[in-house]
Every structure is written in structure tokens, then in C-alpha cells.
């Protein structure tokens, strides 16, 4: 890490890893940690702190078969809902779900930029199959990698007190870091624009709504998905991560058989690409969804709340990928 001007610290546990990357972020660092399953749960306390303090950071969670220790080193997609709802309270986050090694690289770059743009914790929600996959990866020259710096203060520290939580029109406040002279105060308590504790329901409502809305209202700019043959598809397979690789194979074979099907792959698993799914439903072509996932129905719930159309599911709680022929069978059914 020092070769590229970065620092690595082997922390004592995941509570500490998460706290340390938030502290480093407070000092201006782009910071990152990685974990799997139980470690992600340990990080959840401070995911809430990062959300509340609005300190950008990136966490990769390579999902295993869960709950608890489950099947370590074996595949799962069990943390989709934990990623969104894992810490207590309401707040917004972003989670990217790569389905190839190249995307692991590209989406991690995107994760850092999104974290800085929206001042939120951002997750790279891999699964074990993608995490352990070997494929060709193209890493561009450093200056060709998109870099979006954080929005800093627009006045000198001496001019007037800096308001750490006075948001712009995009609902994101500019950030000042430790050592820059702005004498910021940041707390996990409900706080006012100065960052000072504000122990009342009115301040809480303003703050928590903004923490949710800065992602909710910017979702169209954040959301990413890949689609295949959706223009005329009557059966739409929705799949993410490694599962999307099986799904794509099944959809290709089904099209060869002349079946009217397509695939939608959420790349941002959060915010979930619900606008596109609503459009497909409103267009009236889609007759049903097929949802394979390596959990017992976490993504299905997201689709169920958007539609009353039939949802054919293919679930296992972890340890194996869904086979393409099993998905194909559902498309044919």
C-alpha cells in the first residue's frame, strides 16, 4: 500500500475496522475495508455512525451462506437486506453488486466516487463465486480512472463558523476534515447544522429525512442496471451477482428456443432499480417474473411490492449457484 501512497492497518476486529475507516474518512482519506457475513454484522453499528456523521467510506462484503458462521467460503446472497437495513434506524446507503472480476474493479471505483458525492457508506456486495472468480481484468492508467473529489467548504475557516451539516440543493453538505482548521464537531447523536447535539424530535425529523432523501431523491442518478431483451420480453428474469451469470445463460438458451424472455440485472442492488421494473409492468408486455437468488427470497420481496404479477422463484439458502438449466426450466414452464 505505501507504494501507492496508501496505508494498510490490520485491525483487531470488524468493529474496529469500520470505526477506523470512518475516522480516516473524517481526516480526509478515501477509506475501505472488506469482510464477509458475520463481520458485516459487526460493522453495522458503525455503518449507522458513518450514515449519521455523513462520512464517506467503502465496504466490500463477499457474501457467504448464512446465518451465523454458516458455510464460510461457500456462496450466498444472504446479505442483500442486511446491507440496506442492517443498522438501526432510517438512513440511505448505496450497494453495488458486481457479477464479474472486471465489475469488482469498476464498481469499487464507482463506490468511492459515490461515497464522496453523497457522503454515505457504500457497499460492494459481492458473493463468494464472484469474489473467488478468475477472469481477465483491464485496469486503466491511474489518470483514466474517474475521480470525483469531495465537495469542500466554500469559505476560509477565519471568515465564519463552518456548518458541517448545511446541505446544498442536492441534500449533501460540503465536508471539512480534521486538521483543515474548521473546528468541526461530528456526533452520532441527532445534531443541528453546526453538528451540535440537538435533542428534540424536530431536529431529528429534519436530519433523518435528509439522510434518507439524499439517496431516495437522487436514486435515478445513482441506479445502474443491465438489461437483455426487455423490449419484448413476457418473462423477465431478475438476478444479480453470480446468479445473473446463470440467468443470462438460461435466457440466451430460451431465446434460441424462441421463448419471449429477457433479463434485468440490478447493478445497484440499492437503490433497487424499481423505476425500470415499474416501467416494464406499466408497458403491459411482461406477464411474469423469474427470480433466482441464493437466499430464501430477499430480492423477491422487492419485486412483490411492485407488482401482483406471478413471480416464479428459484431459491437456495446458500452453498451452491443456481444452475442455468433450473432457471431455463422455469422460463419454459
Amino acid at each position: 500500500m505505501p507504494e501507492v501512497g496508501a496505508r494498510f492497518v490490520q485491525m483487531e476486529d470488524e468493529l474496529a475496522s469500520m470505526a477506523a475507516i470512518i475516522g480516516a474518512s473524517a481526516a480526509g482519506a478515501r477509506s475501505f475495508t472488506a469482510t464477509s457475513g458475520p463481520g458485516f454484522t459487526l460493522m453495522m453499528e458503525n455503518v449507522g455512525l458513518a450514515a449519521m456523521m455523513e462520512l464517506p467510506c467503502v465496504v466490500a462484503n463477499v457474501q457467504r451462506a448464512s446465518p451465523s458462521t454458516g458455510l464460510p467460503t461457500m456462496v450466498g446472497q444472504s446479505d442483500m437486506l442486511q446491507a440496506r437495513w442492517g443498522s438501526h434506524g432510517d438512513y440511505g446507503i448505496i450497494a453495488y453488486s458486481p457479477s464479474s472480476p472486471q465489475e469488482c474493479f469498476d464498481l469499487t471505483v464507482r463506490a468511492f466516487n459515490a461515497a464522496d458525492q453523497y457522503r454515505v457508506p457504500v457497499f460492494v456486495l459481492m458473493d463468494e463465486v464472484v469474489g473467488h472468480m478468475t477472469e481477465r481484468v483491464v485496469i486503466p492508467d491511474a489518470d483514466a480512472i474517474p475521480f470525483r473529489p469531495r465537495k469542500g467548504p466554500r469559505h476560509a475557516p477565519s471568515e465564519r463558523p463552518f456548518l458541517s451539516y448545511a446541505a446544498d440543493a442536492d441534500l449533501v453538505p460540503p465536508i471539512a476534515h480534521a486538521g483543515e482548521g474548521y473546528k468541526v464537531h461530528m456526533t452520532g447523536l441527532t445534531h443541528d447544522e453546526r453538528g451540535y447535539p440537538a435533542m428534540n424530535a424536530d431536529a431529528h425529523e429534519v436530519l433523518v429525512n435528509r439522510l434518507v432523501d439524499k439517496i431516495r431523491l437522487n436514486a435515478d442518478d445513482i441506479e445502474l442496471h443491465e438489461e437483455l431483451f426487455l423490449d419484448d420480453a413476457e418473462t423477465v428474469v431478475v438476478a444479480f451477482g453470480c446468479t445473473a451469470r446463470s440467468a443470462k445463460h438460461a435466457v440466451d438458451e430460451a431465446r434460441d428456443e424462441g421463448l419471449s424472455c429477457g433479463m434485468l440485472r440490478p447493478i445497484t442492488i440499492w437503490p433497487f432499480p424499481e423505476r425500470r421494473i415499474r416501467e416494464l409492468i406499466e408497458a403491459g408486455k411482461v406477464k411474469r417474473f423469474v427470480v433466482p437468488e441464493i437466499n430464501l427470497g430477499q430480492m423477491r420481496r422487492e419485486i412483490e411490492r411492485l407488482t401482483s404479477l406471478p413471480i416464479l422463484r428459484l431459491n437456495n439458502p446458500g452453498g451452491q449457484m443456481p444452475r442455468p438449466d433450473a432457471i431455463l426450466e422455469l422460463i419454459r414452464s
Partner: protein
Amino acid sequence: MTTHEHIRETTANIHPIDKLLRADRLPHILCAGCGIGTVIHGYAHAIAASGIEEDRHVCVSGIGCSGRAAGYVNVDSYHATHGRALPFALGIAVHRPELVVTVISGDGDLTAIGGNHLIHAARRNANINVICINNFNYGMTGGQVGPTTPVGAKGTTAPTGSAEAPFNLPYLAKATGAVFVARWTILHVRELQDAILRSMQKPGFCFTEVLAPCPTSFGSANQLGPGVHEVEIYRQRCVVDNGNPRLEGLDIDLIDENKPITVGNFVDVERAAFGEQGR
């Protein structure tokens, strides 16, 4: 010498050290007779005496009454989650090694929920100064006993007295690798300020325990009376033993009037601080 017949007190609106405090937030939320304010005050004086620009000082706290310290000091300050002040501070110290990072927090925050982080920050000799305010209980949540409650002392969760052996914090800090270890009380205002100042000037993990009264919770559970009565125990029973005494024997017994409470700057040794050897 000029003679002055009648020098009465004058009424003031600000304190000379106010610029280092978030004076617009005073009076603070801490109870009458609580010692935490004295420690915040001492930290501010140590910043002024350090000769290090205010902008290079950072204060991090955890949760609890002592965890409110960061909210009252006018430097870059962070009020982290319960027990996690040290790893949060480590992130700052690693990214900006030129900053002087001080963690002010309580005994419960630093040694119970944060105990693992404490021993590892000391082990790796992280460039962090810890001011651990020890009031022998969880004051904010109603006086539960914790890892520093002396044997026999009462709390809401040990109404007949704590049966567990407490941590001896200077011994713990030394054993796990701190390069500076001190214990003072809020009565030892100048010694405390000097210990904080020494921590600010010394690279590596520096640990100062400060005994402080908690009249509302610990004091009332143990019939110690108002805060000033607990301070009086310190005055009567503290023995200063600077240098390097046998730290094993430094347990605190607030009940037995015959037992001394040893205070002092116990450890001041050199060891490469975290990051100095490059990684």
C-alpha cells in the same frame, strides 16, 4: 507592593480559556460535583500550553458522560460510538500523522465495551493520547457497576456490593504497551495538566487515568455525599509515587480508609510508535 483595601470578586461573562471551548454550549450537561468538566478544562489548558497550533489538535470521545467531552472542546472533535473512540482515532492518526489526537472518554467506554481496542491500540503503540476518566461506574445510565468498580462498592446492578475484581488501569496500560502511563485525580489539577501535555509531546500511546467523582450515581450508591466529599477522599488518601512503582499493587479501594490511593506519572519509556517503522 500596592495596597488594595477591598478587592471584591468581579462578574465576568467569559473565561480566558473559552476560545478553546465551545463556550456557546456552556454550561455543559454534567451534574454539579462531577469531575469531568475539570478534565475538559485541563485538556484545554494543555492545548494552550502545548505550543502546537489548535488546528493540529483533534479530540475523539466515545459514549457516556465522559464521551460528551468532545462536544465541548473547540478543536476538530468527534463523538463516536460506544467503545469505538480508539479505532476511530486511529483512523485519523494514521491518515494525518502530524495531528495530535487525544481520546477523552470514560472507564466503561474505554475498558469494558472498548477494552479490546484499548489493549490493541496500546500494543501497536498507536500515536494517540488517552485521558480515561474513571468514576468507577456507568454514570449516565444510572450507576451500573463496571470493570473499574472496586470490590465491595455498590451500584444499581450490585446493590450488595461488586464481587468482581476490577481492572487496575495503569497496570493494564503498561502491560499492553503504553509508553506513558499516569494516574491523577481531578484534585491534582497541575499534575494532570502536565501529564496531558507530556502525552501531547510524546509519540506513541499515552494513557492517563483520572479519578473523578460521580456524585449522582456512584457517590449516592456508596453514601459518599456530594462530589466534593469524594475529592476529599483523594486529598486525604492519595500518595504521589512518580517513577515506576510496582503497578500490580495500584488497586483502588475507596471504602477502606487505611488504603492509600497511589497517583503519579508511572511510566515514561521509549518505543517506536505505530507507523514510525513504515508499513
